[in-house]
Each structure stands twice: as C-alpha cells, then as structure tokens.
C-alpha cells in the first residue's frame, strides 16, 4: 500500500515533462540585446536600397512591358492578316480543284460535243471571257493539247475553254453582247456630255 502510494506520487506524464521546456527562457539581458539588434535591422530595412540588379530590373520592367504590348499587337495583326490570306488562298485552290474535277468528269462529254465547235472565232471570245472572269484558272494536269489538235482547233485552247464553250456558250455570248451594249451606251453618254 505504501509502495503503491509512492508509485502514484512519482508518476510523471509526457505532458508534464514537456512543460519543463517552458522553463527554458532567456534572461532580461538577452532581450535588451535582442531589441537593440532588431531596431538596427529595422532601420536598415527602412533606409536600405535595393541591390543594383533589382533596380535595373525594375527600370527595365516598364520598357519590357511596353515592348511586350507592342510585340503582342504586331503578332496579333500578322496572325489575323496571314490567316485571312491563307483562307482566301485555300478557297481559291478549292475553286480551282472543283473546276478541275468538273473538267475531268466532263472530258468525255467534251469529246462527244467537239464537233459542235465549228467556229474558231466564237471560241476566241469565249476564251477571252473565261480569262477575264477566272484569273487563277489553272489547268495543270489537264492538258487538252492532243485533244484540241485532233479536233482541228488552235493549240492555245485549253480544256477549260472547251468545257465552258460546250456548256455555257449561250450565256457567255449574251454576256458579251450586253457588255458591248454597255460600251456603246457609255460612248453615247460621253457624246451627250
């Protein structure tokens, strides 16, 4: 019983042991030095200039930001312009491809209807119209020279003109007629003035 009481009295918990750490305190002298040192450091902080490289970076940062903004705007302009040009080019090449496909598919029809093109003068006017309306008209890979030769046509006739002539000759003829009329009217008008 005595031993048991003695054991209870000598029991020490971890929490109690750790509270001993609270007793590890600096002296007043330490705090005096601490305060002096801290005030000195605070004053240094107040009057201290930034290192030279930070000052340079800070000076440059404004110019860098301006240059960056201008460069970004220029890049946006170039991208927008380039994109629109690319889109137009793509549309045009798509048109060309469509025409080429149409020509290729109508090649056999052209062969059959070549006998209908008897007048070389009509073909010249049709070709002229076709050239003026389709600037980038490209016929690479569809060389109709042999075909035109065999049909007794001029060598500079291309497949496109043959195609247009065979299917839309009437329309082109009427266009030519209306254009001529317009020229006539203009000349009349100029005479009136």
């Amino acid at each position, binding site marked *: 019983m005595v031993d048991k009481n003695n*054991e209870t*009295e*000598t*029991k*020490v*918990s*971890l*929490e*109690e*042991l*750790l*509270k*001993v*750490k*609270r*007793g*590890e*305190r*600096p*002296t007043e002298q*330490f*705090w005096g030095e*601490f*305060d002096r*040192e*801290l005030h000195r*450091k*605070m004053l240094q*902080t*107040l009057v201290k200039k930034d290192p030279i490289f930070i000052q340079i970076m800070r000076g440059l940062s404004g110019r860098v930001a301006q240059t960056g903004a201008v460069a970004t705007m220029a890049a946006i302009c170039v991208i927008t312009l380039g994109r629109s040009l690319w889109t137009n080019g793509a549309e045009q090449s798509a048109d060309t491809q469509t025409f080429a496909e149409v020509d290729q598919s109508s090649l056999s029809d052209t062969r059959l209807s070549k006998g209908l093109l008897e007048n070389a003068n009509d073909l010249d006017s049709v070709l002229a119209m076709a050239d003026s309306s389709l600037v980038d008209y490209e016929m690479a890979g569809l060389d109709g020279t042999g075909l035109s030769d065999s049909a007794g046509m001029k060598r500079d006739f291309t497949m496109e003109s043959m195609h247009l002539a065979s299917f839309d000759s009437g329309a082109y003829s009427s266009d030519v007629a209306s254009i001529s009329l317009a020229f006539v009217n203009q000349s009349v008008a100029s005479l009136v003035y």
Partner: protein
Amino acid sequence: MDITSTASKTFSATDEVVMTDRDLDWLVVQKVQAGSVGAFDALVQKYREKIFAVIYNMTSNREDASDLTQDTFIKAFQAIGRFRGKSSFFTWIYRIAINSTMTFLKKRNRRRYISYEKIDEEVSSSEIFERLTSKTKTEQGALIKELQEKLNDSLQKLSPKHRTVVVLHEIEGLDHAEIAEITQASVGTVRSRLHYAKQQLQSYLKDYIS
C-alpha cells in the same frame, strides 16, 4: 505595449465595448500601416517571447532562435502593409515564424548545433523535479541537465511537422484549431500528427515516464 493598453482602456471605459486581443492587435497594425513605425514596437514586445520560444523549441539553438525571431519581425514589418486582418495578427506572425523556421531547418538539414537556454529556477524547483529526483535517485542539478538534454534530443528526432505540432500544443498551449490555422492544415491532420508525435516521444522518454 503602451499603445495596446491605452486602446484597451479607452474603448472599455467609454464605449463599454469588450475588445479582444485580436481587435487590439488590429488597431496597432492599422497604426503601423498608417506610418507609425513606433507602434510596431508594441507588437514586438507582446509577441517576441512567444515567437522566440516556438523557434527555440523547434531548433534547440538559442542563437538560431534569436536570429530567426528577428527575421520574423523584420518580415512582418516589411509585409504589414499587405496584412488585411483576415486572420489575427497572432496567427499571421506565428505562420511567418513557422515558415521561416521550416525553411531554415531544411537548409540546416542534418547538421545540429545544440545550445540551450538555462531552465528557469521556478521550473527547476517545481514539484515534477522532486518526483523525478525521488524516482531516479539522482541529484537534482544533474537530473535537470540530463532531462533537458533528453527532451531536446527527443524533440529533434521528430520530423519538423510533428515537432511543430508538439511545440505549439504541449509547450505553448495552443489549441488544435489555432495550430490548424497557423500550419494551414486541417484539425484532423493536427490531431493525427500530435498523436503520432506523442507516441514517438513516449518511447524516447520512457525512462522518465511511469
């Protein structure tokens, strides 16, 4: 100290408004933000011992603790303009102290230089030492020295995160929620770390614990 006590008296006497410690600190912080550098001294005087104790118990080195405590106040002084009072000043400055100490401990790595503060006489003559003396049959002076070394050594064996929780809870007496806010961890994480850390310490200090 003067500023906080003056503010406390003014408000409690005239407006009958009970101001918390947090409110008083916020008043002083606003003064510093308005340009009163001297007002910052009040905050230094109020928190320097607590901050020093936390850092000292984390590093077990009085010189490092002194430097880190000063760094903590310098950092707080430099950043006080950005302090918006969302948390208490107490939490904010403890967080600065803990983060600075963690960074320091990572740099220090495994190199440990121990330099202890002397244990206060009030504590060394306390009842716990009487019990330990009678238990271990050791002379009190030798026991104090031995225990201090063993305690610091055991704390240093813990990981910095576990040490932080033990120091803040068991030595500084902060509650779980406060520690969670300072360490930016959940209360559950704090409890779990504390439980694990205490298990570790119990095994290190088994010679002294009944």
